[in-house]
């Protein structure tokens, strides 16, 4: 039976248009205990890790999804006749990093950290749905407040905001960089 559950879950992940959370899987598999679902998910992940085939099972934005392995990118682009995907601008990345770490945050707070006005970049990020407006700050002028979205996690392959490097990791990276430069 457990083998079947894995197969059903695999099929569900395959047809899902967004990362499929284990909660949703449990909602669908009403006659299977939550523990069994978790176990089956674990086994499925192991199968994908070990079989080294064309697809891999990713855990991103709080759910599971199927994707091709990165090393096959050149052939896929040849098939789809797509140039390299366009990357975010440096300004967009910086702004995202600031929002990710300081959310919820206002436009002027972002500008204060970057040292430059960021309205244009915020607009781009909103349009790309990497950030969203979540309300207003209760301060003079009642400025709009921004947060990162699920799509942000998905875009960078993060499972949750906790996957972002910690202060310590950043500090370590900074030190390494310093050493490199000397």
């Amino acid at each position, binding site marked *: 039976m457990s083998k079947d559950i894995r197969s059903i879950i695999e099929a569900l992940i395959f047809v899902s248009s967004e990362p499929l959370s284990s909660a949703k899987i449990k909602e669908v598999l009403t006659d299977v205990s939550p523990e069994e679902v978790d176990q089956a998910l674990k086994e499925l992940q192991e199968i994908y890790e070990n079989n080294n085939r064309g697809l891999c099972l990713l855990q991103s934005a709080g759910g599971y999804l199927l994707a*091709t392995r990165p090393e096959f990118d050149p052939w896929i682009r040849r098939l789809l006749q797509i140039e390299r995907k366009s990357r975010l601008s440096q300004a967009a990345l910086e702004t995202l990093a600031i929002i*990710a770490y300081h959310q919820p945050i206002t436009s002027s707070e972002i500008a204060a950290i970057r*040292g430059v006005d960021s309205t244009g970049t915020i607009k781009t990020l909103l349009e790309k749905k990497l950030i969203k407006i979540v309300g207003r700050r209760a301060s003079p002028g009642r400025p709009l407040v921004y947060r990162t*979205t699920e799509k942000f996690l998905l875009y*960078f392959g993060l499972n949750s905001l906790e996957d972002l490097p910690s202060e310590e990791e*950043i500090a370590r990276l900074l030190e390494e960089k310093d050493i490199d430069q000397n």
Partner: protein
Amino acid sequence: MEAGDLQESYQVRLEIFEGPLDLLLFLIKKRKLNIHDIPIAVITRDYLEYLARKQNINLNREAEFLLMAAFLIFLKSQMLLPREQLQLNEESDPRRILVDQLLEYQKMKITSSLLRKKEEEQQRRWLRPFVPVPLSLEEEEILEVNLFDLAECFYLLMKQKEDENFKVLKGREVSLEKKMKEILDLLEKQPVLDFLEYLKQQESLEEALVAFFCLLEMVRARLVIAFQESLFQTIKVWLRRERIAEGLG
């Protein structure tokens, strides 16, 4: 560093620096300076030299680069205060704000380079580009929405509705002319304007930038005299009396 040392770095056009902090970090690294103990005079000279040589810079960003220049000059004057008054402990070090800002910005730069790596890896993974067609469900497009979508949707609907009569109400936009008039009015009332004090009173960064830009314009147009001496802690602005009549008209 002599002028020549900056030559190679000058090959990099100003646009590639995201802003004044980016440029400052670059200059600090180039000279291998300790970020916690920046020799302000040195870095200010490098910074100004860099700005002076630039060409074709984005005007939107130029104001921000210039604002930083003003701040550096201000810091330099602070650093020249007599030693005993300064007591260079962490708290009273006038460079503290700048250092904090640089450190935070540096952190964000590191993070954004990590994000860049993740982006690269993720971009080489391909998801299924299509959603399987649900068998018998209605064919309505389904979507996830957030507040921006909601507001944008409403805005676009209204725009469609009221098409040519629709007036786009801009947010509180500060025009150069208005700001310039405000500054000139102030100078009419008081002999000397403490410019950094004035900048601090501005409600937004945008407004402060416009104000600073106005000052530069007025100096260029010889409407005012701006003076900054190391012993003073700010930039002082006087009206050029003889020019005001023919001035802005």
